[in-house]
């Protein structure tokens, strides 16, 4: 059976017959990423993030003994004063309705109370409204950030020990922030509300980004070892070859990870319209794609760039290039990384 096109692509990437020059094109790729990052920061600063009720607190209406528990009445009542409001409707004890939404000014409070009273057929005086505090308060955020800080520090040390170079740790963590910033930027741009589920989505992206980088870096570690053919390639070529050799893996993994999430995002959106599931799957979908992209186009080129200035590597590269000049027929697969 003949090779399929994708198979041949994989074979050629492995053998070096075909090479995509990720490391060589790093000026372009890193510039694109830097510009994207600046744009994301600008969006975050000027447009801001739409923090949800769980983070900011809001207004809560209690409708006791209502005639019906139809949730859309509450939705309509709140949306009549603020079309974009996020509304959580909960049935209390089977016959009461609890409506939670963003903090409302007094005038709107009155309007919503009257509409709720009419809709649920209760006297408007029995409806109480109160301000509620954030359920995801500053203390939760603080503890989560402490945890993240400790994790990143440990991951930094762990990777530096495993890969025997702290420059891989730096590249991996820079890439991680690249992914988070990009996803946050898109999120802010779309204007979706940030819920606790969104934050969990971000943490998942964080885990995915780092995971993906470690897999590719492990191949780089292998290829740049002298006894693994590293003495025939200049450093950049070794790094580039590793990225090429793991490219099929990267594509397959990204597709497999993104398909179920994409299923929720696209199929779910068709069936249900926008909902919490769509919010979180959007952040995850973007995160998985950017996580895969950044490992290839940011982490590896950045790492190569950071190390190429090292005297040892410069010496090694010179030697390899010298050898190559003496033997012009050598057609190293990972050539032309510059």
């Amino acid at each position, binding site marked *: 059976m003949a090779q399929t096109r994708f198979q041949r692509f*994989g074979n050629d990437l492995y053998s070096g017959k075909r090479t995509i020059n990720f490391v060589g094109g790093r000026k372009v790729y890193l510039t694109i990423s830097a510009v994207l990052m600046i744009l994301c920061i600008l969006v975050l600063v000027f447009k801001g993030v739409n923090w949800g009720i769980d983070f900011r607190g809001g207004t809560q209406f209690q409708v006791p003994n209502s005639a019906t528990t139809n949730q859309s009445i509450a939705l309509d009542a709140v949306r009549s004063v603020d079309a974009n409001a996020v509304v959580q409707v909960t049935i209390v004890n089977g016959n009461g309705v609890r409506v939670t939404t963003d903090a409302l000014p007094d005038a709107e409070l009155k309007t919503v109370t009257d509409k709720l009273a009419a809709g649920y057929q209760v006297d408007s005086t029995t409806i109480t409204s109160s301000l509620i505090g954030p*359920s995801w308060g500053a203390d939760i955020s603080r503890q989560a950030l*402490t945890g993240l800080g*400790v994790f990143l520090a440990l991951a930094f040390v762990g990777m530096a020990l495993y890969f025997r170079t702290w420059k891989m740790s730096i590249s991996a963590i820079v890439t991680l922030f690249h992914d988070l910033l990009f996803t946050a930027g898109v999120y802010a741009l779309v204007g979706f509300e940030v819920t606790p589920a969104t934050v*969990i989505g971000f943490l*998942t992206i964080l885990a995915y980004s780092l995971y993906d980088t470690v897999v590719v870096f492990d191949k780089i570690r292998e290829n740049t070892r002298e006894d693994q053919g590293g003495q*025939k390639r200049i450093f950049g070529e070794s790094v580039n070859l590793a990225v090429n050799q793991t490219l099929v893996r990267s594509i397959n993994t990204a597709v497999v990870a*993104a398909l179920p999430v994409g*299923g929720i995002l696209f199929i779910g959106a068709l069936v249900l319209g926008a909902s919490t599931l769509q919010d979180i799957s959007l952040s995850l979908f973007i995160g998985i794609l950017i996580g895969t992209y950044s490992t290839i186009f940011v982490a590896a080129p950045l790492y190569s760039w950071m190390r190429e200035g090292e005297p040892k590597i410069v010496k090694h590269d010179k030697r390899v290039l010298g050898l190559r000049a003496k033997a012009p027929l050598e057609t190293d697969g990972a050539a032309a990384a510059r």
Partner: protein
Amino acid sequence: MAKTPTPTRQASRSLIWLAVLVAVLVAALGGGVLWGGASWMPKLGLDLQGGTEVILTPQLQTGQQITSNELAQAVTIIRNRVDASGVSEAQVSTQGSQNIVIDIPGPLDDATKQRIQASSKMEIRPVLLETAAAAEYVGADGKATPCPTPAGQPYAACPTPTSPLNSIPSTSPTNNSDLSYVTAALGNAYENFDCNSLAAGTTNVAPADKPLITCDDTLTQKYLLGPVEVDGTAITDASAQLGTSSQGVSTGAWVVSVTLNDAGATKFNAMSTRLYGYYAASSTDPRAQFAFVLDGKVLEAPAMIGQITGNTSQITGNFTQSSAQTLANQLKFGALPVSFKVQTSATISATLGSQQLLSGLIAGAIGLLLVFIYTLIQYRVLGFVTIASLIISAALTWEAISLLSWQIDYRLSLAGVTGLIVAIGFTADSFIVYFERIRDELRDGRPLSSAVEAGWKRAQRTIYAAKTTNLLAAIVLYFLAVGNVQGFAFTLGLTTIIDIIIVILFTHPMLQLAARTSFFADGHPLSGLDPEGLGALYRGAGQFRPAPTVPVAKTASSAREAARRQTIAERKAAQAHQTDSNDGGDD
């Protein structure tokens, strides 16, 4: 390296271990379902299943206000208490300017209710007077029976006199143990105080700078306590431990060790000097005691049998392990700035309908189906190994989650469900890394059985390195974060561990076995592992070589001179289409 029959034996051993693991989990869960109230279904979180809303309102004296700072502090403490039993991801927030709302998934169980309701304000007060509770002072008929005038006590006896008693201390008290606090009115009130009046969970508060009449929590001892010496919020830690003698040898008796913050310790140590003075004078003087007062009831009133100098002190007594632990928990978690009472408790519905979960799951399932199709296109028959691995890992995850739902009240929230869906990607990646490594080995010309072993050796390293970062994230966040983030960490850790188990105990053994079948070993085009399709060239005698135009990626390590010579030799060899130019690499 396939020289011994070990791979097959290894493979069957691994598969047996996996079967044992699955069987043990099923048996544990099955046993739980039959006898322990477990369920085959995982429990769902607040957003998916609904639960109970509990509104707590502070117990304040008239005119007292709760500050937003105190409220925030109370929210943190109550969240810790609610989460103490596991990772149910309860939500705790404030309502209005003084209430606390707790949303707990599922019905409110008694243990959690106790923990919240025993919600409590802790104070440390010195003891002024102590007597056995004497219910006979006030009879069931409401008539006060005559009571003896306690000899040597500075107050008039009961029953309640007709003329008002002096309620202002005749001399200004010099310290919180000063008996001049005990005015005639107070003494009379103390003498008439019925411990049973505390039984109904009524409030029993007194301002911090005034004495408090109360009883212990079993309502058998009655106390008159001086003003508050140290507020309970100063307690930073309390734990039950086995006491040690001054030589450091364990005494075998349980003690409760209490740690205070610096400000609290300063006050406490000053009190200890005074109280130890009374103890040294007379070991039976009630004033040698101080009381831990929880919600107006005395939890424990130990005597000061030594002077405390550091931040940590130990309470000894006739503790059992469990009574010591209970006291330690009460001291640690009871330190609310103000005490709270359950105002209302009501069932609440899910914020996200089950409709939404279902649609999400269906959409996810369609996505998963696409994953299966993609895997089959990419890896042909080998894709079935991936699919089987994913199905087994899903089954294992389901069992583990159900088991944890039962044991530690783990609950699947929407975020948890999406976490599990993303975990499909993480899990599948282990197989993809592994398969690609095998293909690389095949491309280098190895026969399948040795390619599987060599590929595994290399893939293993990568998989462990990558999974370790995930596990690290899970462990750190689980221990340092709270609420949803903790739940996330738990799910991530769980799925990572299951990934590793599956790839070691299922995927690798399956490939070891598959490599023995002629379908895979002969490189059937549909196997996904045919060397021809992978670009390795058939060379006869069952060996494969890379295409001659392809330079060899790996060479044995050697000295620089050697490397140079070898490189040239290889180049010539390649040009001449010779077949024995190098050994194809080694690990």
